[in-house]
């Protein structure tokens, strides 16, 4: 068992890798097709699989359909290896790069959560994510900086999200009015009155900024973690947010702590 569990202090990082790899597979393959999620509707389920149609590629980098199909297969195999912890340092980079190459075949297919998925896979390859809970364990090279890198990356997502909203029209009521008009918030339309728009928008920005900052300090980490989970659960219930919430919840595992080893008993 020890040969799979590995370095105890890096278990949170490894758990995040497993969860993130699983979400990667759920988003890019038809595994969830029987549940008919919105993001799989009208597709083969294999994200980016050549469909014979015309697309606008990024910077004219159009690849032959056979090569794109091969990249989709390679991305899937690499994501499985990343999740299981097999040659993680290679598989994470392959999954991420293959993902970006497939994504580049349709410039309008870019979504923030896909960038997060592929960048996240590459980051898991660069840190000691395979020093614990992996089928093929590797000795940790720099456990502290590995954890720190992933934690700062996750916290920065919340902070940049808050900055983006502050620089846009959040806080004026215009953003929620627009999202409501687009039908994205139909489930809570009864609650969203124009008088409440400004207050809700300010609350969201403050909470995101507080989570980002709170995750970085050990004293506030637990509260920030609970707030982050509550925030994603709320977004999941009220809006169509694809798999962003799942990805963030997987990444948030890097902030958990593995159980302290029990003192030896006689």
């Amino acid at each position, binding site marked *: 068992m020890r040969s799979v569990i590995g370095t105890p202090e890096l278990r949170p990082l490894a758990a995040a890798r497993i969860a993130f790899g699983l979400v990667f597979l759920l988003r890019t393959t038809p595994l969830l097709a029987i549940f008919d999620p919105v993001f799989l509707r009208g597709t083969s389920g294999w994200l980016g699989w050549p469909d014979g*149609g015309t697309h606008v590629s990024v910077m004219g980098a159009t690849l032959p359909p056979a090569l794109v199909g091969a990249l989709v297969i390679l991305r899937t195999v690499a994501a499985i290896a990343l999740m299981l912890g097999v040659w993680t340092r290679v598989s994470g980079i392959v999954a991420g790069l293959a993902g970006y190459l497939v994504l580049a075949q349709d410039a309008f297919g870019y979504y*923030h959560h896909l960038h997060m998925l592929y960048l996240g896979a590459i980051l898991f390859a660069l840190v000691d994510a395979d020093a614990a809970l992996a089928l093929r364990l590797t000795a940790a090279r720099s456990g502290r900086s590995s954890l720190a890198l992933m934690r*700062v990356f996750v916290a920065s997502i919340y902070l940049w999200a808050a900055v983006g909203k502050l620089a846009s029209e959040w806080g004026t009521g215009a953003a929620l009015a627009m999202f409501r008009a687009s039908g994205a918030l139909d489930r809570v339309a009864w609650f969203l009155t124009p008088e409440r728009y400004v207050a809700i928008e300010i609350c969201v920005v403050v909470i995101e900024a507080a989570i980002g900052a709170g995750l970085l300090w050990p004293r506030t980490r637990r509260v920030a973690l609970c707030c982050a989970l509550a925030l994603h659960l709320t977004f999941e219930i009220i809006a169509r947010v694809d798999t962003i919430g799942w990805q963030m919840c997987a990444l948030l595992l890097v902030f958990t702590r593995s159980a302290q080893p029990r003192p030896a008993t006689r």
Partner: protein
Amino acid sequence: MAVRAALPSTRRIHIAVGLVVVVVLPLVSWLDGSGQLAWTMFSRTGRYRVELIADGVQLNPTEVAAFVAPGPTSSVLAGADHFKHHDVARATLRRQLEEVAILACKVRPGATITARLHELVKSDAPIRTSEVTVRCAR
């Protein structure tokens, strides 16, 4: 399994990678006006409208959307003769406007296509227009 002493080079790589993914990438994409790598999901309220003209005659973007396979490109162009709310699409269209004009060539081979993008970054911002013209092969 013992944790090896942190190799200085590994730590340095982590710091460098951290600076790139946490600061440089988001900042660069922020400065180019798209914010696509700056985690601006659901932050921006940008809107866009696409105008296509083939040999002086209006061509509805929905017609081009119908020509391409169902998917993101089709969704972005369908109904784009009126302002649509999608900030990522707005920023992508600005970069790929020439490719959109070339796409329209498939619907009107041999024509001269002018593609205009009208952007509304914020509700109270002035409309910004960019334009490209391509001559389509027969």
